């Protein structure tokens, strides 16, 4: 009983964390000012989509990044949330359920939470690979059910609504896209704060422990299953909010919202953004929506690019974009950027050349197999190209080969000086911590 005497009360001295305030403030500012930069109609619509996807990706990362649960069925919660939200809008406009539009996302959130409690009870019984497969089973189950009950899910056509309900308050009717954007931005900010806070509660911390070493967590007296269950319920709540917002944004919800395809997309985006950092999914969502919306207008091969990009991320940068950014940032802070800059430029330029060659080849191949009925010529990087000419293929091959060979040569010096610089920085960090 004497060991108690040796423990001292913890020091409670927390200085105001100026850096954190600055980050949150600039986040809010970016959300406020973004529509000023992209004021066009399509710009606003893309920003709104990014906003909902950011909440969705953050909620997904509560499972994958923080809890170590790789789910293939997260769209179940956002999609069902979206269905409940759109029915809430319809009921509100019909007068049978009084709710302002700005609170409709909460309906989605609560629906997500309830379904999280229901399905999570089954899925979180297991962890790891089995969890992944069960989540896939659940999403297929819900998707098949959605086609079976057209009364609630609207069958193939989905359920549509008109988001302008009731009288405008302070002149805000939520008819114009800009007002919807600010509604989404508001919920995005609140949800981000909420999820960041949850990550720092004891529950969030123990979820990290469950991810890293479930056995030891069991030994210190926690039930890993209930930790996973709680995290899933909370994550489903935020997913439901994002579903509710997307229902408001698109004014239509269909079976595609609860599909495995949608679940796969959020997994891709979140992982590409980086699951190791809290802000990673935000980057991933921006990048993902950008790729799906903009790239799909330019090329039919965008899914191939997305898939290959994802595989490359898994293989060579498992920390995602966020970790690449943070490592570069660390090098800049330690004033060593000038040392890696030549090598970095080398791999970037050679990589870009190789990429150009590959993209040209893929585009021409797509054109040849899928659209050759409309003639063999196509626009490629602003130039007319005839896909039937062997010379054209040779040029693309040559560009690709030059890029690849240059990349292979540039890789070794970069790896060397990158490793050197990072080792030095780690040495410094060690010395300062002593």
């Amino acid at each position, binding site marked *: 009983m004497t060991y108690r005497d040796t423990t001292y009360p913890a020091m409670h001295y927390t200085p105001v964390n100026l850096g954190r305030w600055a980050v949150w403030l600039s986040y809010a500012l970016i959300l406020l000012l973004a529509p000023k930069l992209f004021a066009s109609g399509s710009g606003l619509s893309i920003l709104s989509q990014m906003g909902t996807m950011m909440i969705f990706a953050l909620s997904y990362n509560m499972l994958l990044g923080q809890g*170590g649960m*790789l789910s*293939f069925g997260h769209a179940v919660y956002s999609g069902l949330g979206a269905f409940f939200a759109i029915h809430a809008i319809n009921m509100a406009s019909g007068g049978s359920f009084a709710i302002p539009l700005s609170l409709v996302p909460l309906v989605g959130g609560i629906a997500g939470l309830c379904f999280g409690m229901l399905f999570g009870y*089954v899925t979180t*019984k*297991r*962890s*790891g*690979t*089995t969890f*992944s*497969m*069960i989540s*896939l*089973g*659940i999403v*297929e*189950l819900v998707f*098949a*059910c959605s086609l*079976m*009950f057209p*009364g609630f899910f609207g069958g193939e056509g989905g359920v549509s609504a008109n988001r302008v309900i009731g009288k405008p308050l302070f002149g805000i009717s939520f008819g114009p896209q800009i007002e919807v954007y600010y509604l989404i931005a508001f919920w995005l900010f609140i949800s981000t704060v909420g999820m960041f806070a949850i990550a720092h509660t004891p529950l969030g911390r123990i979820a990290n422990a469950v991810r890293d070493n479930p056995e030891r967590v069991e030994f210190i007296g926690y039930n890993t299953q209930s930790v996973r269950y709680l995290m899933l319920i909370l994550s489903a709540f935020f997913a439901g909010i994002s579903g509710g917002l997307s229902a408001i944004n698109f004014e239509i919800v269909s079976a595609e919202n609860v599909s*495995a395809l949608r679940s*796969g997309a959020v*997994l*891709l985006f979140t*992982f590409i953004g980086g699951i190791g950092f809290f802000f990673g999914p935000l980057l991933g969502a921006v990048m993902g929506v950008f790729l799906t919306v903009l790239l799909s207008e330019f090329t039919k*091969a965008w*899914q*191939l690019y*997305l*898939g*290959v990009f*994802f*595989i490359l991320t*898994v*293989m060579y940068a*498992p920390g995602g974009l966020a970790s690449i950014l943070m490592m570069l940032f660390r090098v800049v802070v330690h004033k060593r950027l000038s040392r890696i800059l030549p090598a970095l430029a080398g791999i970037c330029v050679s990589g870009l050349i190789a990429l150009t060659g590959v993209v040209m080849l*893929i585009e021409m*191949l*797509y054109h040849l*197999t*899928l659209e050759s009925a409309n003639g063999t010529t196509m626009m490629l990087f602003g130039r007319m190209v005839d896909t039937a000419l062997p010379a054209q293929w040779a040029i693309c091959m040559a560009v690709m080969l030059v890029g690849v060979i240059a990349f292979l040569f540039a890789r070794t010096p970069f790896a060397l000086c990158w490793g050197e610089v990072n080792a030095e920085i780690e040495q410094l960090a060690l010395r300062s911590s002593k």
Partner: protein
Amino acid sequence: MHVEFTLISLLNGLSYGLLLFMLSSGLTLIFSMMGVLNFAHASFYMIGAYFGYAISNALGFWPALVLAPLAVGLLGALVERYGLRTVHKYGHIPELLFTFGLSYVVVELVQLIWGRAAVPYKIPAALDGPLFTLYTTAFPMYRGFMMLVALVMLVAVYLVLTRTRIGMVIQASLTHPDAAEALGHNVPRVFMLVFGGGCALAGLAGVIGGNAFVTEPAMAGTVGSIIFVVVVVGGMGSLAGALLASVLIGLLQTFAVALDWSLQSLLANFGAQVASDAPYFRLFSITLAELAPILPYLLLVLVLIFRPKGLLGTREG
């Protein structure tokens, strides 16, 4: 229920179940050996079907039956050697993510090469036609051929695993990889062999399943989630469990599709009628045939609640 209907459904269900087993056996082997759940396994099934189509156009069906699975197996071995082995050091979840990304890319590549529509992959003339006639229903010869191939494969896999030297090494690497490595066996190469072999089995299933059903870019998605259900229901890593679950799910789906029973008709047997304006009338009027697509997933949920390690599984994941 008629005897004729029962027998024909039994045979159809059995042949579908055996096809599922050809897929899930490779998946189970790979999983129990490497701990990798190959998300792209159904993609290899699809590649097998397309290879089978391409080769049978050029050389005929019988060479395709041999060559296509070999090509798919080689492809699988290359994926293991140059893809999976790189991410192996990061753990199981990145491996799963890698195969997930692969399944994404394979669909796109297949569309790039063979187009977005289904390809006309036909049953060879020698196997076209009825095998025998039960009462009034003809049982197609090709279904019988599928069952035969699946059974031959089952016996072959069993014999290779239990009676040959390489099978012994595989079994040893499965349970005691370190000890097998210490005895001088190249365990990574055994992994590559198993991965390639599993993919070849999926490819074989593709060659004979592709013309029995439809060869199209969506075929991987439709069968993919079912085989995961099979693996979990049977018990992770249990070959016998995979066989049992495959046949069970095959029978379940084949019988359910043909039956239009509903809660309403059940109640009608007891003389009760459900008014069409009663609340939740839809729930009463759903027929078993409509429920068929979700039955495997319902089975999955039930098994997980009542027997978490699967039907014949020995460990909890």
